[in-house]
């Protein structure tokens, strides 16, 4: 049990964060809050990868001439880091596009609260 917690506590926290983000997307009425939820969810996935790259006794994946590169155990796994750079960029851009959308929504309906918005949509239809 202790081993499980020691080896996995970060993962549990991050799974929790993922759920918090998902919760916000599902249940929050304000579109901005949904976007915040989205950010949280994406961050949790990013952290997930990053923590998976960790090795006990490893150092940052930049060549250290004193250590050499023969033993890969001396460096953290660089692959997840690289992947997450991409994921962060994607997250940012998604955010930018979603902002454009809520600005457009606000321009058309003068609200970004989902319940109000649905009401106005129904009135319009």
């Amino acid at each position: 049990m202790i081993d499980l917690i020691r080896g996995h506590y970060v993962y549990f926290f991050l799974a929790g964060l993922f759920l918090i983000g998902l919760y916000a997307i599902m249940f929050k009425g304000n579109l901005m809050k949904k976007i915040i939820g989205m950010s949280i969810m994406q961050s949790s996935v990013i952290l997930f990868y990053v923590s998976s790259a960790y090795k006990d006794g490893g150092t940052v994946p930049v060549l250290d001439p004193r250590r050499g590169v023969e033993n890969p155990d001396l460096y953290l796994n660089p692959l997840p880091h690289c992947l997450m750079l991409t994921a962060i960029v994607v997250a940012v851009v998604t955010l930018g596009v979603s902002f454009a959308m809520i600005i457009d929504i606000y321009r058309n309906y003068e609200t970004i609260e989902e319940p109000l918005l649905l009401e106005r949509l129904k009135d319009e239809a």
Partner: protein
Amino acid sequence: MREASTSPIIQVAIRGLMPVIQLVGLYVFFHGHYSPGGGFQGGVLLAVSVMLGRLALGLEMSQVVFRSGIAVGLSAVGVMIYAATGLAALLGGGEFLNYGFLPIPGLDPPALRNLGILLIEAGVTVGVMMALIAIYDEIVESRTESSVLATFE
């Protein structure tokens, strides 16, 4: 936003900050081979410096620094630099993006790769910087109903 900020503190702070951020951005980009950083981070920093300029100087003045219409096109150019590097490798006889085959004489494959990485990082920097600026500009310049800005006090 659209108008220049009226607060002198912001004016001065941002004007002082802009070149520093730009310098850091360029450093981050060029030093990406050795330390954390690279094209994307450099691009974001450069973009942020321009955005801060926009915030401080207002829409009209900042056009002198950087005209907003050309950002998207330049962003395409940035990505194109990247893709063209890949294509050049293809024409040099290797696979797409295989920098070892870049048609530049006198360099061994590792050096070519080093150079290739620099080239594409440059592409990324330009692409990201311009794209972010474009997003900013579009958000700021898009027409709004008059009532919208009034809600923000």
